[in-house]
């Protein structure tokens, strides 16, 4: 796991070490031309739809579906954004923000507490609890979705912030525990022992000493959780029909296009949903990739 992180860090450092004298010019060999052509083609295939969607957010419906859908907008229709806002995007954004803030905070706190205890304390049932959490990473959410709805309903928490927050925390715990468990294992035991000898309690040692030392791991798994919970779609669609989060709202807006035919506003809403995520990604992309690759490699 942490090995994976290191590898990731290393590989993203430009590896332009000095070449041996007489090395072939790297830019013009046929293999190089072929590689770059294929790579650029895929890069375009991935990025062009997003860029097109961003541009479409400033177009009218006629321009989006007109004779030349690839053309640039004649004039920039910023009012698409205010219309999108008026269709509830403001509320969706608020709902997403509240739920993700609470969800990620709870996930990080509880996840690291569990991981720390499991990684550093021996007690009966330790392994069992660890595998209980690890198993949660494999199971299809759909198996649980119907009973989960009724569990949340019995608590009277359908379409409430607290309902979604608690469910998000519960479903984010397996990976967070797994990731932080690996991280806490790599931290030196001697420092925690020194703190305990100095008279710190177990929980003080955790919050004041161990947690700050785990910052790089917390950052990776934290961003992973921010993105994962922000993009969550299946859970809120069933558990929060009256209080849609952003991704759910986008799906609803798409459904309503049959009657409204206001695609400019839909793409404005898409842009509002995309920009924060892409910004987080561009700033933290190394941690994002490390966190997500860590999710897969066990």
């Amino acid at each position, binding site marked *: 796991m942490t090995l994976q992180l290191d590898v*990731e860090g*290393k*590989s*993203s450092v*430009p590896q332009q070490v000095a070449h041996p004298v*007489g*090395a072939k010019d*790297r*830019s013009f060999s046929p*293999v190089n031309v072929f*590689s*770059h052509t294929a*790579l650029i083609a*895929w890069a375009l295939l*991935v*990025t062009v*739809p*997003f860029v097109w*969607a961003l541009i479409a957010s400033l177009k009218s419906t006629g321009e989006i*579906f007109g004779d030349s*859908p690839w053309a640039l907008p004649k004039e920039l229709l910023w009012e698409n954004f205010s219309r999108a806002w008026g269709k509830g995007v403001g509320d969706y954004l608020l709902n997403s923000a509240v739920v993700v803030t609470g969800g990620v905070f709870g996930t990080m706190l*509880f996840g690291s*507490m*569990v991981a720390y205890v499991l990684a550093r*304390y021996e*007690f009966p049932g330790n392994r069992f*609890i660890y595998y*209980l959490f690890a198993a949660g990473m*494999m*199971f*299809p959410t*759909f*198996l649980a*979705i*119907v*009973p*989960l*709805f009724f*569990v949340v309903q019995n608590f009277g928490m359908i379409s409430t912030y607290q309902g979604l927050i608690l469910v998000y*925390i*519960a479903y984010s*715990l*397996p990976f967070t525990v797994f990731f932080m468990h690996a991280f806490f294992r790599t931290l030196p035991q001697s420092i925690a022992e020194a703190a305990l000898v100095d008279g710190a309690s177990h929980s003080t040692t955790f919050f004041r000493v161990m947690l700050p030392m785990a910052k790089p791991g917390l950052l990776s798994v934290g961003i992973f959780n921010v993105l994962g919970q*922000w*993009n*969550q779609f*299946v859970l809120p669609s*069933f558990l929060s029909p009256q209080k849609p989060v952003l*991704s759910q709202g*986008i799906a609803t807006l*798409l459904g309503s296009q049959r009657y409204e035919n206001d695609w400019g506003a839909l793409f404005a809403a*898409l842009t509002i949903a*995309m920009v924060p995520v*892409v910004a*987080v990604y*561009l700033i933290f*992309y190394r941690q994002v990739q490390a966190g*997500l*690759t860590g999710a*897969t490699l066990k």
Partner: protein
Amino acid sequence: MRHGSYRFVASFLAIPLALYAIFVISPFAQAFYYSLTDWTGISPKFNFVGLENFKTLANDAVFRTALGNNVILLIGLPTATILLALFFAYLLNVGGRANSAGVQGVRGNGFYKLAFFMPQVLSVPVIAVIWSVVLNSQDSGLANSLLGRIGLGPSGFLADPNLALYCVMWVLIWGSVGFYLVLFNAAMSGIPKDIFEAAIIDGASRLSTFFRITLPLLWDTIQTSWVYLAILALDAYALVAVMTAGPGGPDNSTQVMGLQIADNGFQYGRAGYASAMGVVLFFLTLIIAAVMLRATRRDRIEY
């Protein structure tokens, strides 16, 4: 164990374990129980019907279509994604190969990884909306206007029952390649360079270093990827629900198990029946994971 640490352990575990038990473990366990009942999900009363739901399931034409579609995804998605990701990961590495260093990032390595990975961070509805517009069946749809320019007739894409499922599969592949590229690339960079140097000195070509060294050393990673892609292929709910009309596509052509579970559980008032579908999905997942891990098991190579 020092004095007081049991109480500490218990206090740290109590809340998270309770949350996990209530919202994750208990619904999973309940699903198994409800799958044996005729619970509607609305009335508090229900009867125990044994394996009746599973018998009905075996003859449910729509569910069988859904299962069949999931199987098509199960074959196509991992194959295409892993091949493409391996291909690009290898290009990223081999492109910059100078004289001696076997694995060296191509110029722009970081940029490509940044760009390819992008779809992975966006939510499914965002991707689904963009692609449903790109694949619009009108002549002026984005993909169709390009096809028209190179002289190919307009395609129905998501409106065509023969194509709709493959459009969904394409979007899944398109979204996953970057992630597995980064994964394979990390694994490739982890292979010690002296292995490649030795092979090159012995006169090995690029292709033979790939098949003889890179691929075998990547086997663990590929195997894990396969399992995760298979799980993804068994889901596909969100894309189908947002992208295809109906939802479920023309003539149930994009019907998948997730959609059937949601429809039966929440629309048709057949919660017990939907739970039975969930149980089928669970065992499929379990079997796939077990089979894949066993079939691809090899001696682990330590380096």
